């Protein structure tokens, strides 16, 4: 287990290097540049802007320049947002995305595990069936459908929550629910499947034969091993939730960094996209590392590996 975690850390730097390299050259291979616009700048002005950001140099030279900055912790200036650095854009947006993402993660985890466990305990009963149908619906409904419906119900029909914006704790709730729903559904399905298997294992039959109450069997003995698949799902899911979603951020008008993935790419804001890709990559690696550690805590076999 510790070996695996150590390996992850050792491979992190080359992984990020490959990630940044691929993104850099793919971005630059796409036709069009950051200063193309409906108005078209005069050629001499465009040339001057290109020179200002070194976009007139060959791509490998720009890549070298970018890596040089990166080593010194400089993500460069945003090409789109005048006099703002990529680092400051991420620093401003990341806490917002993280707050919504963390709330969504908590909701998905608690709700998903609880529903999954309920379904597993009532296998093939009506409760199980309805939870599974709900999970299927939750998984299939895209957030651009769920989010407007949530606004319609909880901001317009029942004027309880703001319809958008980033204004105090109430603004977290609806975006978090919209983000959490598919994850909650996935976790419920994973928990139900894994718990179902564990509950059928011989050592659970032993526990039952001992006369342990069902609640104790499920929550003390069965749930821990059953959570393994949920935990491995959680690594990338957490990184995804914490870095925001462009749809949820646009629909609710919240200032996270999810939009920068898509908008940055559409605007050919090379440095901004590379910055968020790097940030996302580092988060995925970090969460996977945490998952490895959690495995050790949950699974004695993993500790011995």
């Amino acid at each position: 287990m510790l070996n695996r975690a150590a390996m992850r850390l050792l491979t992190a730097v080359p992984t990020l290097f490959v990630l940044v390299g691929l993104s850099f050259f793919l971005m630059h291979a796409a036709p069009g540049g950051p200063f193309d616009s409906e108005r078209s700048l005069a050629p001499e002005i465009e040339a001057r802007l290109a020179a200002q950001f070194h976009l007139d140099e060959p791509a490998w030279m720009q890549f070298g320049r970018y890596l040089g900055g990166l080593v010194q912790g400089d993500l460069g200036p945003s090409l789109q947002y005048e006099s703002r650095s990529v680092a400051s854009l991420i620093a401003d947006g990341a806490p917002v995305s993280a707050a919504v993402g963390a709330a969504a993660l908590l909701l998905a985890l608690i709700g998903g595990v609880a529903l999954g466990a309920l379904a597993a305990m009532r296998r093939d009963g009506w409760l199980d069936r309805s939870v599974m149908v709900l999970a299927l619906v939750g998984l299939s409904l895209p957030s651009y459908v769920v989010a407007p419906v949530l606004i319609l119900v909880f901001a317009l029909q029942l004027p309880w929550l703001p319809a958008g914006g980033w204004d105090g704790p109430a603004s977290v709730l609806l975006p978090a629910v919209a983000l959490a729903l598919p994850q909650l559904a996935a976790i419920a399905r994973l928990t139900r499947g894994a718990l179902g298997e564990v509950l059928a294992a011989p050592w659970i039959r032993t526990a039952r034969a001992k006369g342990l109450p069902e609640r104790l069997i499920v929550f003390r003995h069965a749930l821990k091993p059953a959570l393994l698949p949920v935990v491995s799902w959680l690594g990338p899911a957490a990184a995804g939730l914490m870095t925001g979603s462009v749809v949820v951020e646009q629909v609710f008008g919240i200032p996270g960094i999810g939009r920068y993935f898509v908008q940055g790419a559409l605007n050919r804001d090379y440095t901004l996209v590379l910055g968020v890709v790097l940030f996302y990559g580092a988060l995925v690696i970090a969460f996977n590392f945490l998952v490895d550690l959690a495995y050790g805590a949950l699974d004695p076999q993993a500790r011995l590996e």
Partner: protein
Amino acid sequence: MAGRASGFGASNKRAGVLATLRAGLFALAALAGAAIAADPQTLVIGNGTEPESLDPQKATGVSAGNVLRDLYEGLTGVSPSGDIIPAAAASWQWQDDGRALRLSLRAGLRWSNGDPLTASDYAAGLRRLLDPATASGYAKLFAAIEHGSEVIAGRLPPSALGLHADDVGTLSIRLDRPMPNLLSLLAHPAASPIHPADLARPPKPDARIGNGAYRLTEWVLQSRIALARNPAYWNDRQTAIDRLIYLPTEDLNSELKRYRAGELDVTTSIPATQADWIRRTLGGELHVATYLGSYFYGLNLTRPPFAGNKPLRQALSLAIDRPVIATKVLHDLATPAWSYIPPGIRDYRPQVPEWAHWPRARREAEARRLYAAAGYSADKPVQVEIRYNTSDDHKRIAVVIAAMWKQVLGADVKLVNEEWKVFLRHRRERRDTQAFRNTWIADSDDAQGFAEILDSRHPRNDSGYADAGYDALLLEAAQASDPALRRAKLEAAERKMLDDAPILPIYFYASKHLVKPRVGGWQDNILDWHYSKDLRLSGR
């Protein structure tokens, strides 16, 4: 047995959890209620995409302009109905047969930090705008200032510009050629003054010093731009609203919901698909007005099938039934365009061709005649590609036009959809395009700004239209001091161009806003400029 017992416990627990959730939701609702309730002294404005900059000389785009007009005041201004009015300059005189303008500033003007504001601050703003080091997208608007073209091209230093601050309160502007729209362009945010401190050292994006009716108090990117009244503004006692909030509203459906929830007072636009519902339920709050924009299809004249084939281009234009597009596709949120320069432009009459008044059958018959004259027939149909960038509206219009060309002429039309930046590159290169979506939104209420993009040397001449007669008419218009002569030349140029059909006009844009009844003083105008200092808020 054990199973049932635990199930019972779980359901009790569930009820408890639900009760807690409900209580929590109410607590949150109470918190949110405080934030939502409309403040009687704060105007909340939906502003579309987030401005990329609030540097008056560097910022481009509608959303930045909206904020900048509150933060800076030009020498001239625009009244709620769209007329040019004195602003920082109290009066002006044209001199030297329209080759020079002398403006007298109001006495005692001040920057938002209290420093005195002088004529040289305005001169500094214009010099910075034309300085190639600024790389401003709006530099060309003022190229007619004496030595402007040389300064933009870097052949002369910005100090060579024909700008002279005669004293603290007088600015003289000398021109290379007459510029009848100079007064309206001086109201443009790009012509804002710049504070010497901001000029010396680039400030942080939210720390610029302004001279408008409002000053910036907070800019949280993608969240809010907050403004408060500027007590140093010369006419501050006429300003009615204390605070403004500009909200980024990229998603028009969400913006509409937030408007309905009372979270904002003015929307940046409306979703076209909701137009009928809005007319039914919010009709009195909907403001639709002609805007300075023209939507048209460009035809690439540098390669087949459109190179040297005027009858084909005319046939395609005649075959487009514009009212169907404006009504059915755009829900009457646009005006059908038979000519290129929008109606309502100052000192200009739309050059609608005669055939626009014909019945449809006659137009279509003429289209077929021209199509045959161009050398095409049912056996030998023309093959055309329509290229457009990704957007539902562009797609629907392309589908409708393809159907019209197919139905009326039997043309073989292919639709090509491209991502925005790819599309822009292709359109500019003129190598792959045939027919393509195009748009021009002008920066001032003047016909020249529209006409010039079809000049053979203009960077946005995506059709490759190169007509010596057209260029000559534009040049004569540019040099005319007599407004009537200038207008006649520009109108003749448009007639000539429409007959050559390098572009096919389709519709004129409309500005679309929802404005809450509590907002007073709002008037529609063709520029779609609304200074917040002219608005009022009444009690709910």
